């Protein structure tokens, strides 16, 4: 099989990337192009699709905060959730300033991670 032949070669990282990374991911974007054909931008279907996307994104956040990987897993849940809440609070308190939100959330999380590492 050609994939097996490729496995040993210097091209393998690129072949694997395209076949097992790029194509399985890109298929959803291509499908999005196909399915958006003929949809007017005031269609109620789009309002629903946007709500689905929004709920899905919130779920991605919940997943990354509740089941983190790597160095983030060593930081207590309280600090992870606290970082999100503090970041959002600073974001809205400053009139939706992204820089203020990101810096506040990050300061809390990195501070907690540093403190846990010390203890």
């Amino acid at each position, binding site marked *: 099989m050609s994939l097996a032949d490729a496995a040993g070669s210097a091209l393998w990282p690129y072949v694997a990337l395209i076949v*097992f990374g790029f194509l399985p991911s890109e298929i959803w974007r291509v499908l999005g192009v196909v399915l958006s054909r003929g949809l007017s931008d005031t269609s109620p279907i789009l309002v629903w699709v946007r709500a689905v996307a929004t709920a899905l994104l919130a779920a991605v956040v919940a997943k990354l905060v509740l089941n983190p990987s790597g160095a983030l897993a060593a930081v207590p849940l309280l600090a992870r959730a606290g970082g999100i809440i503090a970041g959002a609070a600073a974001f809205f308190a400053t009139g939706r300033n992204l820089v203020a939100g990101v810096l506040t959330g990050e300061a809390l999380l990195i501070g907690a991670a540093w403190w846990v590492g010390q203890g």
Partner: protein
Amino acid sequence: MAGPSWQDRSWLWQGARAALSFPAWTVALALLGVGSLARDVGHPIGAAMMSTVLIWAGPAQVIFYAGLATGMAPAAIAVAVSLSSIRFLPMTMSLLPMLRRPGQGTGEQLLVAHFVAVTVWSESMRRLPDVPQEHRVPFYFGFAGACLLLSTVATGIGYHLMATLPVALAAGLLFLTPLFFTLSVTGGARRAADWLAIGLGFALQPIMLAGLGDGLDLLGVGLVGGTLAFLVGRLSEARR
């Protein structure tokens, strides 16, 4: 009738400037870690940077390289990557109608779709309504292109840098993704239905993870939470 190209170029730059004013840096920093993951599995730096250009989805790239690191079967990696990227379907569908222009071919639509990622999508949904319809496509390509370019460079830097980073900072970089997603999505929320979708998305995830398992959980949350939020939004608007 085609718009003068100097005007397109000016909107392209405006988009790039909007991205470089901050959002592009958070995406780029968040993708530093992918470089080091690629290095851990012995892939060349070119493949690591190409993963950002081609996959353009932090979580999928992490699954891809972490899967290789733990010896997952390639087919299983492909399935996990695909499940994690389902969000691009509703995101692409809701963005494309905002970026239509006369004479737009399939090629341009596929290129628009390829640049879709959480930051690009949520910031575009927020900013594009203020951009005149005929200038949206160059603005979008400027914004998304700047994010992608900076992130690709960051992936290459992370390839060499991450191993030497203190743990607290490494945790901070990983935290950028959920933090920025939260601000970007809540920042774009306008109606009660948007807030309901966000709240349901957070609340339903642990339940769907327990019920559907790791992979289909996100799709389940999107369909159930999004549909509920949509229906409640319609009912409350109809009552008004």
